């Protein structure tokens, strides 16, 4: 059995600065060994440990979709030691990726359902993976209506702008992009907080599941809106963040009641979360 702590070596293929404040960069990795790429079989909603020799490892949601072959993508916010170091790395540099880890959005359950995706700020990464996955020609017919509410504080802080624009043009996905505020006269999308926009667009709860990721304050105010729209807790899905080290349910730090967020999560329904201690 392969040592689960040993990362697959990868090369940084490209680095894209996503936001105006330059705090978010998207790293595209290619595996040095072809067999590693095959072994790294993932499902949207999973994450991986990005491993920088000499600095450490950080758990980051996978932003690419398994339908996109030949590379994996991660969007990294500059906060601590490893992520700050990564922001100074260059294309061509070698580092490691360990994973995929954790569970995923319940795609089998979601089949045939309408999907409402609600995201805020930089928590949009695995949601991006999910959207790309669902929109793939081989998958689109498996799902009903898709609605996306995605908000950021201002236009410059939205991730994946080109893709957002492309999705806007499609008629098989309802995009509701919003910003908290803007002074850009050419801004053609919504202005307002995510909960308010969700309420306004009022996606139907019938035969629907909601996937919600974002800052705690956004989640706190959006949940009542979803409840009002008729989403029961078992059909509201979220993904938790925790400090992690091993990522494989051994080192103990992401323990939450009987669960390890890294192995049994990070994806939980609201119903499941209500049974767990609220230490997240």
């Amino acid at each position, binding site marked *: 059995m392969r040592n689960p702590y040993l990362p697959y070596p990868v090369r940084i293929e490209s680095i894209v600065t996503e936001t105006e404040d330059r705090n978010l960069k998207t790293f595209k990795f290619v595996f040095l060994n072809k067999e590693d790429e095959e072994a790294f079989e993932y499902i949207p909603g999973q994450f991986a440990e990005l491993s920088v020799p000499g600095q450490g490892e950080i758990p980051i949601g996978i932003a690419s979709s398994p339908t996109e072959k030949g590379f994996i993508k991660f969007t990294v916010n500059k906060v601590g030691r490893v992520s700050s170091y990564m922001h100074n790395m260059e294309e061509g540099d070698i580092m490691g990726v360990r994973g995929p880890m954790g569970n995923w959005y319940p795609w089998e359950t979601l089949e045939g359902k309408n999907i409402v995706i609600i995201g805020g700020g930089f928590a949009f990464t695995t949601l991006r993976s999910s959207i790309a996955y669902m929109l793939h020609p081989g998958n689109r017919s498996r799902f009903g209506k898709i609605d996306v509410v995605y908000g950021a504080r201002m236009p410059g802080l939205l991730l994946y702008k080109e893709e957002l624009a492309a999705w806007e043009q499609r008629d098989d996905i309802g995009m509701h992009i919003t910003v908290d505020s803007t002074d850009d006269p050419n801004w053609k999308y919504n202005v307002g907080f995510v909960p308010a926009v969700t309420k306004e667009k009022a996606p139907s709860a019938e035969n629907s599941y909601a996937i919600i990721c974002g800052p705690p304050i956004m989640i706190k105010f959006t949940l009542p809106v979803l409840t009002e729209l008729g989403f029961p807790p078992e059909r509201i899905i979220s993904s938790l963040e925790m400090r992690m080290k091993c990522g494989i*349910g051994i080192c103990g730090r992401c323990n939450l009641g009987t669960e390890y967020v890294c192995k049994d999560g990070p994806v939980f329904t609201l119903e499941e979360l209500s*049974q767990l201690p609220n230490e997240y």
Partner: protein
Amino acid sequence: MSEIYISKEKFPEVVGQLMSHGRVYGPVFQGQYHEFARLDKPEDIDLSFQNTRLSPKDFFHPHSERMFTYSLAKDDPERCILKEAPKDYSTKVVLGIRPCDAKAFQLDDRNFDTETIKDPWWVQRRKSTILVGLACNSPCSTCFCTSMDTGPFDASGLDVLMVDVGDGYVARSVTEKGRECISSIKGVQTVPAQAAEKEGQLKKTAEESMGKVLDMKPIYEKKTLELFHDPLWEEVHFSCINCGTCTFACPTCWCFDIQDEVQGDSGDRLRLWDSCMFPLFTFHGSGHNPRSQKIQRVRQRFMHKLKYYPEKYGNGPACVGCGRCVKACPVNIDIRHVARLMSTSCSCPA
């Protein structure tokens, strides 16, 4: 199963035989306390101990260990590629380990050695180690193993169980590994009838002297969130100073940290014991800390041991009643007291 009798005169020679096959570890008296150490000569072992000051978990999960090494040299074609650090997995005999400590490893196996994920270092060390235990004829006043699904004569975590019957030891194999170990020993007797009888008496006396001081059943039966929100933690947490002593002394506490260290052009990835008592344990890069308060961390430790673990795995508490935390805690937080509060606490509405 095989069994032998080793008289006390013969014992050093038997230790010598084991030493000639490989590494042998045992309790060694070090000034004021006993600690497990590699035996240089058979006489080093001192089985007249109650228990070692620190738990022997170091055998399988060392405080600090090198996981990988790597080069950061600019011109190294293998730059930034992690390599497994070499380890010595030759056979190791641990002589005189207490049943509770051996049981602790079994509990930790559920964490390190699962069907889907195996911790390579733990698994290989477990495989290459033979645990020859020594039953406790006179448990300490801080011991409460009988309340924690194990006992002073519990052989379940061992490969061989030895019992001191006065003028010698009765050794019985528990596993195939243990049977092989015993049968390799030369020039020993079969177990005399009176020794076997004595053994039974000793077991009875030891277990009876401890009684059952705790009832875990109410804790299992209570709802997790009910215990989590119980006001008892207010009382329990006050005196805690959030040092990691209890977790470091504990035979079942396995949590660890992973750190990178670089010297010049070469680096190590290391893992080391960590503790849920430290605020940094759960501190997010963003600055958010889900367990920023002392009360949350204290609750986490006890809940994990006595509620979350048994609920997750269904094989009893993640505590073997060795009493080390009771003895080592600088402020006298006593897990027996906490467990009692947990099992008797009222279920007042939050």
